[in-house]
């Protein structure tokens, strides 16, 4: 529990560390970006949902469909969870979910 809590508190840094590594190892000029890399107010087009079937379906029902524009908006204090504007609605997602939503 405590270990989880520490990881969670450091969550952002760990995530960023992991991401940098994958970016470095992939020899593509530009790795697929995910929702968390968008700046607030910046629009991105959703490409795919890297989530278990159940969660992906639910998100798609809420408007997170491939091809739709997503814009990050306000967040809870600390930046997590964040509200995303998609398909006329505002949906709050945790960071761990948002990193699995890959942009085009």
């Amino acid at each position, binding site marked *: 529990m405590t270990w989880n809590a520490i990881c969670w508190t450091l969550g952002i840094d760990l995530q960023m560390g992991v991401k940098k590594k994958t970016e470095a190892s992939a020899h593509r000029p530009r790795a697929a970006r995910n929702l968390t890399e968008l700046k607030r107010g910046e629009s991105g087009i959703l490409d795919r949902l890297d989530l278990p079937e159940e969660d992906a379906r639910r998100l798609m029902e809420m408007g997170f469909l491939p091809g739709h524009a997503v814009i990050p908006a*306000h967040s809870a204090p600390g930046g997590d969870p964040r509200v995303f504007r998609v398909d006329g609605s505002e949906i709050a997602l945790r960071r761990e979910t948002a990193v699995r939503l890959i942009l085009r």
Partner: protein
Amino acid sequence: MSDCHGCSAATVTLPPQTRRRIVAIVGPPNSGKSTLFNRLTGLRQKVANFPGVTVEHRMGRAKLDGDREVYLVDLPGVYSLTPRTEDERVTHDVLTGVMKDMPKPDAVLLILDSTNLSRHLVLAAPVLSLGLPTLVILNMADDLGARGGKVDSAELAMQLGSPVALVSAAKGVGIDKVLQFLAGTTQGASLQKTTQNPLMELPVIQDIPKCRAWAAHAGSKAKYHAPAPPLWTRRLDAIFLHPVFGPLIFLLVVIGVFEAIFAGAQPIMDAIQAGVEKSGHWVGSVISYAPLRSLLVDGVWSGVGSVIQFLPQILILFLFIGILEDSGYLARAALIADRTMSRIGLQGKSFIPLLSAYACAVPAIMATRTIENKRDRIATILIAPFMTCSARLPVYTLIIAAFIAPHYQVLALLSLYIIGFLAAIGTAKLLKSTILKSTRSSFMLEMPPYRWPTLRSLGLRLVDRSKVFLRRAGTVILAVAIVIWVLGHLPIKNGAPVPIGHSIEAQIGHAVEPAIRPLGFNWKIGIGLISSLAAREVIVATLGTIYGMEGSSEHSVELQKALHADLTPGGAAALLVFFAFAMQCMSTIAVVRRETMSWRWPALQFAYMTLFAYVAAFAANHLVMWLA
């Protein structure tokens, strides 16, 4: 603008109506389903449960012209009819007619948010493919117009092959079209004839992208012009979700609610108390037969009266929760709370049930249904009764008023709320790191636009709560008050009841006294504790009856004095702490059993909370004694 096309059914007089027609209301969350339901049924509604499932729904009667009525069923809000969550399964089963004890509906009111039509129309595909006569209601027409959106409902009706009505359920605009459609359903089974063949073919309903494309197409055919973004919602979110002001406002809201409950309700409570006392005197003066007079005045009046005066506090709490929920702030609160909740292994969605648990654990436990993750849901159910529910308020108020100086009363009450909250957090951590361990679940929550809560829906909530509370006061609490009075007067010796100190009640109290003496309680409190197993606030009635028999009146100031004389400060502290932690509520036990579908969880919960309460009360008693 609010036009209806093809709403009136062909007036073919087919077989006479043998039973009332049933019309189901279906729609996505935040589409205004409940507002429409309230608008159509008013006070002619009740909460019901389907057999075998935990999902609650409301049934109501809508009155139509010429004394005709239809039954309306308000189904849970869903984004699709794929039966995955329990809410979706219930909606699916009712609409397809496989729900037990529930005939297949004769028609459907599909309610969609017109300000977000392209996405909400997705639900039209599976609902229309059921083949039931359906009225597509485009709600929030006032918002759509105000924000510069447009839709051609006649064209949409042609495309969908079903009547379409543009309404504002909150303002009551366009409701006549809905009533017209409902009147059509009573004409007979011929309603289907009024719906034409749709111009658009329905998509494969399992394929979400295809459904979404279909909805977009239907919207563009109907010249749907989406409204401008909700400016006020954006402005308010800039404040309510501000990194600094957001949490501050959040705290202010919570504190404000408590202040209103404690200070704001006082004048009304005093008035009710005076009324109860006056009517008690009047009853006493009218009835000459002494035993009956004593039963009514000392038993019923002092027992039930001491509980009824807490109605204003309970209503104020429900009023605030209603305002927070209907205005859309509660979703923001869940967002702000998510990070904190995730630290104890829960999520922001648990926050809404836990906040409602401050009013009552029963609706709170029902509200946990929105949590998809089963382990999170059970953990939330198990900790909800630690939140200070309104039934504890009568007990807290009485003891705090009797023992604590006026200056520190609010502080004392706040501390009791805090220790309950801390116990809940500790328990959640314990549960989530042991028997309910799970991987962190996903959190997806829609932020509805802010709206003014309507007086109508707030009023209906309060009427509903008053009914529940008064029914309890009239049944359980009345029965307990009478039993306590009777046991306090038995056995009869030489044709007269023995003094209360020698009654059966005293004997029972003395029997349990050894167990509760370490907590600083005497036999009278013991009787109170036993009777409060039915419901917490019953202890106030019981003490009112016991001390009433001892000669002090039912007036709560008298009861405070009597308690002050009879209980040590340590005992008073222990009693407060005991009530903060113990699970003395049969309704909660019953609802936990129903929601978790087993006796295991309520049994574990009851044992854990009682033990916790006993140990904590013991500690409180000795701490105060040691300090004093």
